[in-house]
């Protein structure tokens, strides 16, 4: 959000009333967005107060009941930290994001480099087109696909049996120990092609002369990748890695909710699905919002820290 050089005309010091009159249409055009943000972003932030009271779901006005409910301070937070679920939920959240990062972070880099080395235009375009596709389907469809290929007579099991790696079908979605891996692979499958676009853009800005010079010096393709492509990608890689660390608590509601089931709940429950379950399914509204507040606050602090780090390292920042 750098100030545009073009628009740097300093606002003349005019009377506020006159400026308001001059800009009435601009303000009018901004008003739907302001109303939207107040209703759907800032009102829920006021609603966070719910986490500090003992809100009883009852008929009638939400705000009235909220502000007349018994104030309990941080009791709900304490309850969350003490009741044993905290450790399990945090373990699942962090394990799932870290495992996802392990696969989904290098994959687009490798794909971008590989695609860049392809000279055949048609092949290159086909691979790119198809690999972007999963990004645009919903997680509902993706979950249906995952469930299908991993089912007991699905493709993966057939392949495992064909290769004699297993005799009986592996029930992937019914055993907790596989769950984080499934989510990690599903995340990678869905977004690896699409994420490679950023790296391809970075590669395309590398000066072609460097490759020519390397060729003259006798560097093979591997050496060209190692000494030219990768070093040029490094700044992009570093900033994207830092940014993804900011999302470590954001394990993704959709995939955990849609792929999880009662049998694997001990491994599939993450902060967002846990809050959903207690709030909207068990009606423990105050407890669930306390869990949500914990999630938002820690995630926000992470983003601030990460943004600071990226400012220091790359001189780039989000805000």
């Amino acid at each position, binding site marked *: 959000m750098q100030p545009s050089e073009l628009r740097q005309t300093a606002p003349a010091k005019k009377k506020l009333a006159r400026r308001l009159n001059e800009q009435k249409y601009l303000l009018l055009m901004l008003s739907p967005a302001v109303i939207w943000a107040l209703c759907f972003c800032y009102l829920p932030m006021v609603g966070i107060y719910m986490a500090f009271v003992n809100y009883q779901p009852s008929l009638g006005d939400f705000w009235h009941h909220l502000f007349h409910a018994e104030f309990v301070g941080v009791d709900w937070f304490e309850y969350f930290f003490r009741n044993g679920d905290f450790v399990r939920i945090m373990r699942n959240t962090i394990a799932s994001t870290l495992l996802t990062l392990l696969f989904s972070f290098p994959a687009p880099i490798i794909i971008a480099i590989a695609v860049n080395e392809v000279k055949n235009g048609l092949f290159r375009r086909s691979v790119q087109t198809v690999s972007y596709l999963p990004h645009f389907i919903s997680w509902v*469809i993706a979950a249906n696909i995952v469930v299908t290929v991993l089912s007991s007579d699905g493709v993966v099991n057939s392949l495992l049996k064909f290769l004699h790696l297993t005799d009986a079908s592996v029930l992937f979605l019914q055993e907790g120990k596989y769950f984080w891996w499934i989510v990690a692979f599903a995340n990678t499958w869905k977004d690896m092609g699409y994420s490679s676009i950023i790296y391809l853009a970075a590669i395309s800005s590398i000066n072609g002369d460097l490759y020519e010079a390397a060729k003259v010096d006798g560097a093979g393709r591997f050496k060209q990748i190692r000494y030219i492509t990768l070093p040029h990608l490094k700044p992009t890689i570093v900033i994207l890695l830092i940014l993804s660390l900011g999302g470590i608590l954001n394990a993704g509601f959709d995939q955990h909710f849609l792929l999880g089931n009662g049998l694997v709940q001990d491994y599939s429950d993450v902060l967002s699905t846990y809050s959903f379950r207690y709030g909207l399914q068990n009606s423990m509204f105050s407890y669930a919002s306390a869990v949500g507040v914990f999630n938002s606050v820690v995630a926000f602090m992470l983003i601030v820290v990460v943004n600071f780090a990226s400012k220091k390292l790359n001189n780039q920042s989000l805000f």
Partner: protein
Amino acid sequence: MLRRFTDSDTWFDLFNYLFLAAVFVVTFYPFWNILVISLNDATDSVRGGLYLWPRVFTFESYATIFRNTELMGSIKVTVLRTLLGTPLSVLAISMMAYSLSKRELVAWRFFTLFFIFTMYFGGGLIPTYMVIKSLGLIDSFWVFIFPGLIGVFLMILVRTYIEGLPGEVEESAKIDGANDLQIFVRIVLPLCIPVLATIALFIGIGHWNAWYDSYIYTYKPELKTLQAVLVKILNQFQTGDMVSEAEKLANSSKRIPVSGESIRMAVTMVATLPIIMVYPFVQRYFVKGIMMGAIKS
């Protein structure tokens, strides 16, 4: 010397092509597999082993969907929210972006931070649900339109684009006595068509794919979107209900035996097909969109 390099380059190319072919298969095949199972006769599908081609080809699963009023209703809701929600969002976002592109706007810095903050901090699921409820949006079609009306990130894309437009046209219109509203409608909007098309695609796909709002904010069956119905089918399939939603739908046709599995595949395909169909035409825009986003942040 030269031979050696050519050889290692050949090996490199071979492995590179094989690797990318594997990427192609891994991303493409799951879609193909769903299509194959959805086009196979349901009773025959139970035998398994359907990988490359349907054994007993039939459109019966699809016919069942189109005979089913609940599913057709959900398709209607999804189409309606996409067709109505997309232009409304594009309009609201572009008006907002135009206003915020004027740095001389009163309290410009305040407004900017006011919106940026919402990108990084929110009330969370439960307070949001309560607010939606207290606004009377539960079980209302408008719950699909209003809460997601603005995308602050998309606004930044549009604003950046507007800031890159040459300012002279606007200035001369101003001298001719046009107000900001007229300038916006007659000059800025037409010039912004490329970026607006890009965000319209993002928003449209978002509407088509949305399930969460329908799943949690609506209870009436006639307000369920296609994806929300698919979630219901998936949930029941996962928990292994004796008579799943898909089987109920299958049995309601009562004509030819259709299994829950093949209905699940067919609904998945119906929900995916529009994306696959528009996708080749709009792919360029998506790429442009993410590039613009990448440059910005």
